């Protein structure tokens, strides 16, 4: 039986190039490219490295979004994934992280119906447009499997029953062993994502689109109306506040006062 890996990925606007129109205070979206979310690229890379090592691995990428998210599936397959599935339906639009995890759960359960059990699920830690880091753990909860987030190193046993990972902490790491199946959320320290290959770009693409009916999702658990959280207001932030001048009678006092401020702001 194949060793099945599912990678959940998201297409996001490249927030590094987003600008705000200072007059209207709205986002300027023209010319902002859509990209494979950074942490998700590390998730895919880890799956592909397992595929490089063993010859019976199948990597499936699942994404949720509008039809243009097919570009993401194209990219992932051109890098080496075996198939891509887009879950796209107006009914799941406006979903918050809870409703999104319900949608992904339904998609994965549908996938299992067709393909048999999965062994491992990777997601990026967070997406750069929302930065919530919530969907990975929430999906793991819905599927009833263990999770490890902030994975910065990964090792799989030869018998592929357990994995050992380093989970990043602010001041170090935890070394964690977990039995499969489980869900891991990945960060950039984990690996360097590969490029698409020419063969991959021109090769056959196993891509399909599922709607809400295909994944048999409970419509009372997805979309805007079902989401427990809603946007109340949104606005552009005010310009940067003026900084604080660090006072002190001696250089030593200045240094101490600075460190107290930095510690208080949790930047060190």
């Amino acid at each position, binding site marked *: 039986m194949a060793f099945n890996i599912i990678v959940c990925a998201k297409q996001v*606007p490249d*927030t590094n190039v*987003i*600008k*705000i129109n200072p007059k*209207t205070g*709205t*986002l300027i*979206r023209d010319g902002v490219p859509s990209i494979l979310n950074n942490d998700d690229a590390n998730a895919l890379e880890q799956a592909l490295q397992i595929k490089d090592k063993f010859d019976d691995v199948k990597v499936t990428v699942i994404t949720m979004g*509008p039809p243009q998210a097919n570009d993401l599936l194209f990219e992932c397959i051109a890098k080496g994934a075996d198939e891509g599935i887009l879950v796209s339906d107006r009914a799941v639009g*406006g979903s918050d*992280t*809870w409703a999104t995890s319900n949608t992904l759960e339904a998609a994965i359960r549908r996938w299992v119906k067709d393909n048999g059990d999965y062994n491992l699920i990777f997601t990026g830690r967070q997406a750069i*447009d*929302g930065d919530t*880091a*919530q*969907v*990975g753990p*929430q999906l793991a*909860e819905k599927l009833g499997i*263990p999770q490890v*987030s902030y994975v910065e190193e990964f090792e799989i046993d030869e018998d592929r029953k357990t994995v050992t990972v380093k*989970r990043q*902490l*602010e*001041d*170090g*790491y*935890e*070394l*964690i062993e977990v039995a499969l199946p*489980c869900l891991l959320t990945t960060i*950039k320290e984990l690996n360097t994502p590969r490029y698409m290959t020419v063969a991959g770009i021109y090769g056959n693409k196993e891509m399909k689109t599922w709607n809400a009916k295909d994944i048999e999702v409970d419509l009372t658990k997805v979309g805007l109306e079902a989401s*427990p*959280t*809603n*946007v*109340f*207001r*949104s*606005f*552009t*932030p*005010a310009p*940067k506040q003026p*900084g604080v001048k*660090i006072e002190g009678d001696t*250089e*030593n006092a*200045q*240094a101490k006062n*600075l*460190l*107290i401020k*930095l510690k*208080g*702001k*949790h*930047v060190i």
Partner: protein
Amino acid sequence: MAINIIKEKCIGCGLCFKSCPKDAFYFEKYDGNKLGKVAAIGPSCDFCNQCLTSCKFGAIEEKKIEVQADLSEYKHVWVFAEQRHGKMMNVALELIGEGYRLAKEISEDTQVCAVLLGDEADIDPLVDECFAYGAEKVYKIASPVLKNYTTDGYTFALKEAIDQYKPEIVLYGATHIGRDFAPRIAARCNTGLTADCTRLDVRVSSYIEYTSKNTTLDTSTLDPNDPSTGIKQTRPAFGGNLMATIVCPRTRPQMSTVRPGVMQKREPVAGAKGEVVEVKTTVSDKDIHIKIKDIVKSTKVMVSLTDAEIICSGGRGLGDPSGFELIKKFADKVGGVVGSSRAAVDAGWIDHSHQVGQTGTTVKPNIYFACGISGAIQHLAGMQTSECIVAINKDADAPIFEVADYGIVGDLYKVIPEIIAEWDNAEALYDASTK
């Protein structure tokens, strides 16, 4: 859609189109006005509500959210008092302070409660600290199984307590642990969670006060006398380019993670006391599906400017190339990487690979130390989105001070050695300053 367009009021002017970041508006034929068309909203709407104040004719209204569940049995504000090996995380104390403020805004008899999870020996000494910083009640969930944080163990134990005591709000620090724990428990409770909040309000009046003072939000559609006390959670999105305020109207508890360092601790009151509730937990080893083999504290080896969490940069203010020896020493001490301004590279003092700026590398570290850098536009373009900028410069009028979070006017050759000398004492200095 989160908004309704009242056709009778719409004159078809299209003013709302400009307010929409997603270009979701289009015109529909309509016979009831002069232009023969009204605005309509299409599927690309992502419910940001930015159009609410754009209509001069009152044709855009907020869709009211219907709440069916009975939420009144949920009371009090809980703070996840995160501790690691018996040491309280600072953010937990900040959240007790913030939780206190929110609780009193809800009502006089609403309490802020700290929830301690862990091994009895680790958490027992922390109870008084919670009270000192403003907690009115402490829930202790003690078990040897909870000695180290595990997603499974903590989620199981806190879910039991939430089911039993029904808090209205639960706050978590947005630490690596909080951001792992909160989504899992929120999903298990089937409630809403908002990540990385930087501002919380319960009263509409305080929300109006905050937004009108600090943001660009038009508050004219908000009613300061609105009696509702649902939490309004404000957070950055789109890489900090946009702020969104999130509500959780239909489910309880309302949950937020909050960034460390943004909320205020209360002045500690030594000897403060409150009620301690010993929560019985049924969590056992069987509930935990991972094995922690080791916990390691480490200082990271930085490889490049773009990945660096701390950057120590030098500029022409160093005076001569040997100044970079001090910068290197500084970077080594703080676990950072050496950067430089173009001026220093052009002067031949350091290799181009260290250059930060428009023609060099764009960086976004947690801390950027600008030492002897005046702050030319081209340099600022490459570093001004750093989380925290510290400028050290002799010239008090240097433009770098305009983007700096913290500025020291002084001789870098005297200031930096002092920072190096005191660096390892930062925590003790901070603790002493808050006592």
